């Protein structure tokens, strides 16, 4: 029986940010003139009236325990003005109205083990999903992949060595909650789901599972005398879309669930229109606890980009200039038949011209 509650929720919705905003920001709301980048991890914004605010940005472990959260608050009270915000890549930002507070704040953050950086043309924090820690369908862990990778990219987080900013994302299944990125490290399944036919009829709403399949490879069937589902394995693209609505169709596999790497996703409208990321590498082992093979590919791509791209070119801009053949040549990644799209609208991705770089 349901428990009794006499308290109706207060449907207050999204709170007003103004009540938590630094007074200098509140005072100059909508009235900012320009910004400067005094050093990596620090922004200086100047308002039309002459007020200035300094922001210090730091990377954290993202999955914060209350001890760490309080440590971040202590630093905010002692070295800043008690006002913070978070970027959508889960970096914390402290705002101070006085330039003399910037260096002590940076020292306090670094002494406490946080990493100041992630602004301008750096590799900022990897945006990631829940993974084995909390998701119901993950093929890998998210926090672990990111921790292992940021250990190696920390120098790029703290400095401005890249031609333009680099946004990396990870996702633990092919739904890709991590979203588009200059580089995306995503799970890629390579075998059809293994079906526990004893459970399907009890657990799954079969018509909606059939409807969920992007390639119509699932059909109802009677297996061992019970209503179940079967998969046409020749049609199956191993995407795992059937697994969330039907957990007995297990898609994750310790051996056959791999990682793939995609590049060139860019949300901004700057220069060109926003772009989707493209597959460049697959079949990378899903290798906890530190996923060294995936990190090696990411580092190789970053190194090549750093050496070959021009100022202000994001990874997609760079590849548009040099072309895909040179990208594969420079990164030494293999080009395979799997790189050629065969999804809806795929012909638009083919080269219908004689434009070829020799």
């Amino acid at each position, binding site marked *: 029986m349901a428990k009794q*509650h006499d308290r109706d*929720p207060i449907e*207050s*919705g*999204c*709170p*007003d*940010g*103004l*009540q*938590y*905003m630094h007074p200098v*920001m*509140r005072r100059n*709301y909508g009235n*900012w003139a*320009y*910004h400067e980048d005094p050093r990596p991890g620090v922004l200086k914004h100047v308002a039309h009236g002459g007020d200035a605010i300094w922001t210090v940005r730091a*990377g*954290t*472990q*993202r*999955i914060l325990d*209350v*001890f*760490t*959260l309080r440590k971040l*608050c202590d630093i905010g009270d002692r070295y800043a003005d008690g*006002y913070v915000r*978070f970027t*959508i890549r889960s970096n914390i930002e402290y*705002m101070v109205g006085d330039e003399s507070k910037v260096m002590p704040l940076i020292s306090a953050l670094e002494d406490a083990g946080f990493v100041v950086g992630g602004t301008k043309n750096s590799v900022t924090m990897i945006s990631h999903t829940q993974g084995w*820690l*909390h*998701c*119901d369908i993950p093929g*890998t*862990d998210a926090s*672990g992949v990111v*921790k*292992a990778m*940021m*250990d190696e990219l920390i120098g790029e987080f703290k400095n401005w060595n890249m031609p333009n900013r680099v946004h990396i994302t990870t996702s633990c299944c092919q*739904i890709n909650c991590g*979203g*588009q990125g200059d580089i995306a490290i995503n799970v890629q399944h390579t075998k059809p789901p293994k079906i526990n036919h004893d459970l399907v009829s009890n657990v799954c709403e079969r018509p*909606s599972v059939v409807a969920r399949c*992007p390639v119509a490879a699932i059909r109802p069937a009677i297996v061992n005398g019970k209503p179940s589902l079967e998969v046409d394995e020749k049609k199956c693209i191993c995407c795992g879309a059937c697994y969330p609505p039907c957990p007995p169709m297990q898609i*994750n596999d*310790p051996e056959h669930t791999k990682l793939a790497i995609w590049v060139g996703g860019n*949300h*901004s*409208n*700057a220069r060109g229109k*926003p772009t*989707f990321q493209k597959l460049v590498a697959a079949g990378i082992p899903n290798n*906890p*606890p530190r996923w060294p093979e995936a990190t090696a590919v990411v580092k190789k791509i970053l190194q090549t980009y750093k050496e070959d791209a021009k*100022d*202000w070119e994001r990874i997609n801009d760079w590849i548009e200039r040099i072309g895909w053949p040179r990208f594969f040549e420079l990164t030494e990644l293999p080009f395979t038949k799997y790189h050629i799209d065969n999804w809806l609208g795929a012909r638009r991705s083919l080269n219908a011209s004689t434009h070829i770089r020799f």
Partner: protein
Amino acid sequence: MTKQTHPTPMLDELEKGPWPSFISGIKRLRDQHPDGRVSGVANDLLGQLEHSYETRKGYWKGGTVSVFGYGSGIIPRFSEVGSAFPASKEFHTLRVQPPAGNYYTTDSLRQLAESWEKWGSGLVTFHGQTGNIMFIGASTENTQHFFDDINEYGWDLGGAGPCVRTGQSCVGSARCEQSNIDEMRVHRTLLNNFTDDVHRPSLPYKFKFKVSGCPNDCMNSIERSDFAIIGTWRDDMKVEQKEVKEYVAKKGRQYIVDNVIARCPTKALSLAEDDTLEVDNRNCVRCMHCLNVMPKALSPGDDKGATLLLGGKRTLKIGDLMGTVIVPFIKLETPEDYERLVEIAENTIDFWAENGLEHERCGEMIERIGLVNFLEGIGLDVDPNMITDPRTSSYVRTDDWEDEAARWFEHKQSRQAATA
């Protein structure tokens, strides 16, 4: 208190290296937290996570958990290996809506931390990919208690499931010179108009609003939201020629030509002999690149507003879709402007709720029925800003061409009258 801790040889590897370690954080809860409930949950959570690392499999299952009065906002998680790790066998996440723009005082964070260690695991993320504060790990019973606590002092749950989801807006007017709209107001006006649709899932699938103050689109709204509101301007961009000259003097002519002039996507820029910048504003597409390079010299104009794009989403089911323009420009200043924005959002959600298939995002519905049917459904006129190119296939019926052409001229006239 001494108790046995699960061995975690694989997770221990993630305590090495210079980046802050989430494993060390969970261990702090296990080893140092005074409340035995919190430390016990952390211990069993580490045990299950180690088991995942060893077997390369996840062991959480969904279910149905909500708080009284709502059908949304909780991500239920029950462990499949709960008998081995009983303290964390119920480990639900509460999605809580952050303030628009993600601002906090340290006091507000401390207050949340206190409630969370009283009822939950003590693990929290600012923020999840949709934009919620993720309070990760509460038992079914404590989910209600935690919500009651924080709801009393001003926090409310976000969306989960087929409903309007928590929104996101950029720092915008609060700190950024490129802002063209009041992002927080747009965010809160829209989200808080749909509170019922956030808390009670009854739509075909998820529906997300994201607000960016300029076309840099720091909220990733074109690709990651069903309804993107992006600030822009209609008049000429502002040029401080003195600052342009200083920039040229500092960086050199070649740098400016290579990195500003040559990177303009519509070739709308030219560097004059006297090191001033000439802008062909009629052909500027507001891409933001030159403003990003020279923020002191270049700024958005004064006639500000927003472009609305509809239908962005990721892979499931038909493949990735970007949002596409449905309103090239809308002013967002007066209460009437905001009413119009809400009206467009309401018409969109109503039409999609009526016509979308189960588990079909708004963009997928538009892909299925065509943009024109959708526009007619929500009462918007076609506009050449909505397309990259006109159709290339001749397989189309054009019976009512003259009526449609007359309609175009009529709208053109009324638009001209409105702006005159």
